[in-house]
């Protein structure tokens, strides 16, 4: 009975995210100057179901629900939504949900493909370090996901201004400076989170296996991700790689994050593989 309820909650969340995504995309092309909040409200409703689903899985499994691909992907999109709502209410950026909700929906959709049963936690994962590690990692990745969405918005707005052909989208998208600043601030948020996630991961690895670093593919790709964002920040602060270049880098960075997230788990084998 309980399983059925949480499946239902998941499906409801997925459905609302889907409608929110569609209405967000329609909003991009709709010829009205003011942006409607429909997509935001739909995603909020979906988020409530989603949260209930995560809580139910937590109660049922007795641990933070990130131990299968289904749970991890769902938790990932949930973390993005938390950052999305914070940004939406703080900055009121026009069209933000049109660019974030597709990412959220695609993650939820891939989550729905994976097997959903709640697995018994392997002893290796029963550690506070693990919980902290996972939460930090997902929040960091969520910040990079947001930076990617904002980066796409920046590129579109930049093309508008450079091409001197101002479409309706020009009116609706935020200013270049705002987008660039938020992109930067998201990366300065994601980078330390990722760093801390790696440190806690290393500590936990040591307590679980007695070795800090084992060149597990996930570890390698995390390191690559970390290096990419370190370079993004470095170039920005030293030679002023801002604007378009920063936007492109934050999109590339997120592609690597996604590859590290799915690619490793699906193609390669390691401790981070859940199935």
């Amino acid at each position, binding site marked *: 009975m309980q399983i059925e309820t949480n499946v239902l909650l998941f499906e409801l969340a997925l459905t609302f995210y889907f409608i929110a995504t569609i209405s967000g995309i329609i909003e991009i092309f709709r*010829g*009205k*100057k003011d942006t409607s909040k429909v997509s935001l409200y739909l995603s909020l409703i979906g988020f409530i179901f989603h949260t209930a689903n995560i809580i139910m899985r937590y109660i049922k499994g007795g641990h933070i629900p990130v131990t299968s691909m289904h749970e991890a992907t769902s938790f990932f999109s949930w973390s993005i939504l938390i950052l999305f709502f914070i940004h939406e209410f703080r900055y009121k950026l026009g069209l933000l949900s049109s660019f974030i909700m597709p990412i959220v929906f695609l993650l939820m959709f891939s989550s729905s493909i994976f097997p959903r049963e709640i697995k018994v936690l392997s002893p290796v994962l029963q550690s506070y370090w693990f919980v902290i590690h996972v939460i930090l990692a997902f929040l960091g990745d969520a910040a990079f996901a947001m930076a990617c969405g904002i980066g796409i918005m920046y590129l579109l*707005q930049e093309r*508008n*201004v*450079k091409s*001197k*052909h*101002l479409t309706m989208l*020009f*009116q609706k*998208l*935020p*200013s*270049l*400076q*705002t987008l660039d600043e938020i992109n930067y601030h998201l990366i300065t948020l994601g980078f330390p989170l990722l760093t801390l996630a790696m440190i806690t991961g290393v500590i936990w690895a040591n307590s679980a296996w007695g070795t800090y670093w084992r060149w597990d593919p996930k570890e390698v790709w995390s390191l690559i991700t970390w290096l990419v964002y370190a370079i993004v920040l470095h170039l920005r602060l030293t*030679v*002023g*790689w*801002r*604007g*378009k*270049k920063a936007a492109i880098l934050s999109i590339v960075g997120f592609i690597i994050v996604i590859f590290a997230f799915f690619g490793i788990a699906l193609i390669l084998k390691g401790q981070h593989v859940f199935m």
Partner: protein
Amino acid sequence: MNILIVGLNHKTAPIEVREKIAFDGPKLEEAINILKKSNAVKENIILSTCNRVEIYAGVSDMDSGIESIKDFISEFHKVSRDLLDKSLYLHKGTEAIRHMYRVASSLDSMVVGEPQILGQLKDAYDTALKNKTTGVLLNKLMRKSVSVAKRIRTETRIAASAVSISFAAVELAKKIFEDLSTKAFMLIGAGEMAELAARHLINSGVQDVFITNRTMARAEELALEFHGKVITFENFVQELLHTDIVICSTGAPHYILLKEQVHKTMKERKQKPMFIIDISVPRNIDPQINDLDNVYLYDVDSLQGIVDTNVQERAKEAEKAEQIVDEEIGSFLKWHASLAATPTVVALRNKAEEIRKAEFEKTVKKLGPMEEEKVKAIEYLTISIVNKLIHPPTAALKSENNDKETMLDVVQKLFQLETEKGKDEET
């Protein structure tokens, strides 16, 4: 009572005439109070802006209304009736309502969609209210015009985008920088369009202003006007390091700023974005500069291109707005018709009922006692005759048509109705 508009605007009268007829400052209150005393003009509001002077009036008779308003203007401003007849336009009844709506929603403005007119109209109305020169008719018309203007603003994109080069420049600057108050601006050279754009930028919050010009004296003059700092023309490239927005308009026949120079500056300013507007013809700034990252270069043609698209868009939106105006005229007319007709219709019905009752009772008395059924039949007969007789005139009075005033008059005279004049206005 009917609506009459007498006025002139930028299309019908040159500035010299508009100046003479303007009711500015204290003249406005004086004028509406004089008009208030006129017999022909029951209600009045005067709108006086730099592009138009209009008198909105509620009159019981059109011709005498027009005459007394024209006489009043001619006396008040000491201008000849001849000149007035040439430049004034008149709008009566339905056309007056349409005109009012179009003015309020900025469809009749020089720059269609400009937002100031509604505020000016509200001010004019406030002054009229304060001086109690309006009545039920103009009050309703004003309120309705404001709501029509708001409806048009929300339902169409008539005022959505900039339709002048200087506003387009500000709009772009805001989409590049968001907050202009932290940005520095440099004006290179001078010229009407450049100065206008500079003024708009400063009005939008830009605080640090640098002025440079080949002629030092001119630079100082402009610096005084814009509260800016003068920099020498030889140094302006160095100063670009601290400048975010540049407007350039010099008479130089060649480029005064090259791609290499900006490339170097951008490196030094760590790629902080720069927005450069080149208003000069021939162009003074190397167009290839636009290829650099984080530099946005616009010349006159590209700004004009944006303005043209926006103007076209406004024209399209204006069509939608005209449709809204048409719709809303209908609802006002309905209200106006009911306002004028109701007392007359009621009076007509009462009169008919009075006669019917009296005649019916007289007849019943004469015939003496008889069956209830027969009395009922007779009563029914009288009722249906009366109803059939007064149906066409009441229906006509309630319908909407142009010569309602005449019809009301005729009906009142034919049936010797006494409707209290005052009541018409207060219902």
